[in-house]
């Protein structure tokens, strides 16, 4: 072991080794007591009864509880500590939101109950939609996208549908800045669009002249993240929107960084036509190890008729969920983006958060998020290398110039932070600076937490410059597993357990 402590068991105090469930199998054990089913009536199985065992392991409840408890202890969450993962908005997840999502009258509802029996659920969707429209100043919102990338695709589909409907189906080119999230070009490709990259200027923003030069009669839309992935507000955004509209194209905004401006800017005032909102970022629903999220997508007046099914309208008998286009003659939905009625459980949590915060709290949150990022920037700019001058929004970007000639890479630096009890920042993104370190502290971190982080970063930067490359390369040393061989994983993929093959 890197710290010299070895044990007979392989366990290290509270860090306990845990096998795969398949290695704990004792056939006949149960963790759930189910009644005896009686003989199976094979008449109704078309002769297709399963002929072979499945191979699932049998465990008892105490084993299962211990298994997942131990696995959880090998994870770092926001509940554990500071998680400054840029572009991901890892803020505190309120427990009230969890409690509300578990109310029987909201959790135990089927999507195909008669609508008269789910008026309260439709009210949740309608109220959240109302808030999202108020906060953005936009007239409509498609609630069903399941995540940010799904919302991007939804917004672009509405744009494509508009162009097709207006005899402009030849508009297939989409302008995407080089600093964009990878999902942007991937979503554009899924709408049958071609991606035309737009360079950044030396201020970390879209090169407006280059963008304008690329506008033309075949451009469907631009996709701009604002604030952008360098943590900067696009100063010329109103000008960009006007030029885009003048060219007959739409402005899609990637709303991943909405947390910087909620309650301080209505995106409708910027000339944006459509934007997705990551409820799991801005409105604090838990990321859950990679989802579920939700990506409601606001739409301008022009795009609103193309919103996908289903959607909630106010009808004579209360709220009505529209599931077929024919029910609303003026609607022209481009289709359906997922099953059922959207990420309802995520909606409940987001609405509980919004109601808790209120208009005043939401504005204070974005203000504190920006304050925290600027505080990190101010306290670290002399030891790290900030990529751009001036204040940032809710995240601050550094590159790896401060590590020049130290033999330490951005990755090594980040791994060293793990031993210090912090989750690393986002690394090597955005691609427009070399060896990026993108830090997003969020508003729910106290000054004491930030000060502790700042002290560690300063000490590590000094240490790296003093020549400690070997130590950085060896980090992390105190985690359940040290650096893992990702090349081996990709070259010889082992993607599942098989008897005798995974030891």
């Amino acid at each position: 072991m890197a710290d010299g402590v070895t044990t007979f068991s392989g366990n290290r105090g509270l860090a306990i080794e845990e096998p795969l469930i398949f290695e704990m199998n004792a056939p006949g054990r149960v963790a759930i007591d189910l009644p005896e089913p009686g003989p199976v009536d094979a008449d109704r199985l078309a002769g297709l009864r399963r002929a072979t065992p499945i191979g699932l392991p049998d465990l008892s409840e105490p084993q299962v509880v211990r298994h997942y408890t131990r696995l959880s202890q090998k994870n770092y969450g926001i509940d554990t500590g500071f998680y400054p993962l840029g572009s991901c908005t890892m803020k505190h997840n309120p427990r009230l939101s969890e409690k509300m999502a578990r109310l029987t009258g909201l959790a135990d509802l089927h999507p195909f109950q008669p609508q008269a029996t789910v008026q309260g659920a439709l009210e949740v969707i309608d109220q959240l939609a109302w808030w999202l429209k108020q906060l953005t100043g936009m007239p409509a919102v498609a609630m069903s996208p399941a995540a940010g990338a799904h919302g991007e695709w939804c917004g672009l589909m509405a744009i494509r549908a508009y162009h097709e409907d207006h005899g402009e189906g030849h508009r297939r080119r989409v302008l995407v800045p080089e600093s964009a999230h990878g999902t942007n070009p991937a979503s554009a490709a899924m709408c049958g669009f071609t991606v035309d990259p737009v360079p950044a200027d030396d201020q970390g923003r879209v090169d407006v002249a280059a963008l304008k030069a690329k506008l033309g009669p075949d451009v469907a839309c631009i996709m701009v993240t604002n604030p952008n992935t360098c943590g900067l507000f696009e100063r010329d955004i109103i000008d960009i929107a006007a030029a885009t509209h003048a060219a007959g194209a739409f402005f899609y905004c990637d709303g991943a960084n909405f947390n910087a401006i909620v309650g301080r800017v209505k995106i409708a005032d910027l000339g944006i036509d459509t934007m997705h909102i990551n409820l799991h970022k801005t409105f604090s629903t838990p990321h859950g190890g990679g989802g579920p999220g939700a990506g409601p997508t606001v739409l301008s007046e022009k795009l609103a008729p193309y919103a996908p099914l289903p959607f909630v309208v106010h009808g004579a008998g209360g709220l009505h969920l529209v599931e077929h286009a024919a029910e609303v003659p003026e609607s022209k939905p481009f289709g359906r983006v997922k099953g059922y009625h959207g990420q309802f459980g995520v909606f409940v949590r987001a609405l509980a958060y919004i109601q808790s915060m209120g208009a005043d709290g939401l504005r204070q949150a974005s203000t504190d998020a920006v304050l925290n990022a600027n505080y990190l920037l101010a306290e670290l700019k002399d030891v790290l290398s900030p990529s751009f001058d001036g204040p940032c929004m809710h995240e601050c970007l550094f590159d790896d110039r401060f590590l020049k000639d130290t033999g330490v890479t951005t990755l090594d630096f980040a791994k060293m932070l793990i031993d210090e009890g912090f989750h690393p920042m986002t690394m090597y993104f955005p691609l427009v600076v070399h060896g990026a370190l993108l830090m997003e502290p969020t508003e729910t971190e106290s000054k004491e937490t930030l000060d502790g982080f700042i002290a560690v970063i300063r000490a590590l930067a000094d240490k790296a410059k003093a020549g400690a490359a070997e130590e950085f390369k060896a980090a992390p040393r105190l985690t359940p597993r040290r650096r893992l061989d990702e090349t081996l994983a990709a070259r010889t993929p082992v993607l599942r357990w098989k008897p005798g093959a995974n030891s």
Partner: protein
Amino acid sequence: MRYLPHTESDRRAMLAAIGAKDVESLFVDVPAAARLPGPLDLPKAQGEMEVERAFQRMAMKNLSAGCAPFFIGAGIYRHHIPAAIDQLLTRGEFLTSYTPYQPEVSQGTLQYLFEFQTQVALVTGMDVANASMYDGATACAEAAAMACRVTKRKKVILSGSLHPHYRSTTETALKYTDMAAETLAPDPLAMEDLMGRVDSATACVMVQNPGFFGHVRDLAPLAAACRESGALLVVAVAEPVSLGLIAPPGAMGADIVVGEGQSLGVGLSFGGPGLGLFATRDKYVRQMPGRLAGQTVDVDGKRGFVLTLSTREQHIRREKATSNICTNSGLCALAFTMHLTMLGETGFTRLAELNHAAAVRLEGKLARLKGVKVLPDSYFNEFAVHLGEDKDAAAVVDALAAKGILAGVPASRFYPDWPELHPVLILAATETNTDADMDALVAALQGVL
């Protein structure tokens, strides 16, 4: 505000350190014309008590499934969820972590995803599964695109057995691409001829088993026909509990299996979030969408897990990626894998038998109703019922809801333009249904038919 730690003196000290006179100066890059001078004129912050009251009020307006004899399925199924699952699911290290990009501090997530992938591969009878998609419908759409990549063909045949949301989500996903969907009519009697449609232009045939109207079908002949034409067979499974009793799609020759995982561990939640299941053959793994956890070793030679084969993904490949998916359904995958771990081979098989037995009992009780006919001759825990030529299933469901019975889904909710389906009601029975529930349903149906 309880989620915001800063005091006013914290804020002043931080502004001083920044060298800014006020917070407004930090927003200097925002065009002045777009800056809001103060909070919007919207409701203000509220304490927990007030928020709880507002949500209780909305919750009370609903008839929750547990408070009624309940027979609704159609892709979302009500099963009993063991108490341990929610207790474990809400552990903050699971709940509040991000996608496991830093494997050294994410071994918990990565190991359960690896276990999840193995379980999905086992129950579907496939070689390999990914770490989840958004839901069953989007998994279908992704499977169609993957089949086109694998075969370099453009035609996707969508069976009438598919859940209508799976069908329309897939059609939407293909709408503005060079791929095309050929959609068959809804198929309540399982009469469609899929084999006759497969040709050398077909990328895949997508069917659901058990079908949307309940039928359980032997897909081996269709798989053979697909293989002969160089097309892939994609099988959607809307009710994964069925895999405890019925031969898995992998054993029938499926090339891709997709499905909705909500049935295990997740609960109803008004239909979302769920989780998409996605499994395939080893040879197609590099064309697969979504995250994959893989086994490796650390520098000390200890077994560990990482996200792998990411060169398929959007953050590396951008517009050439296999999918734009980034966030998936990790926490729902955790619920799914925990439920399946608790069930084990013994429990999962038994749960499936209990479900089928419940549906068989329900069919038996419905036989008392004159003019009512169960349509499929094979099913798992759900079947379509024809209520009689002049009957409107939607009106029947509304009438029973008024009596506090949630009596299935009328087919017309999905197919309003198919008058022949207006008398068709889709009923599901699971281990949660008691004989008393079934008797109440049958008695109430007798009253309105």
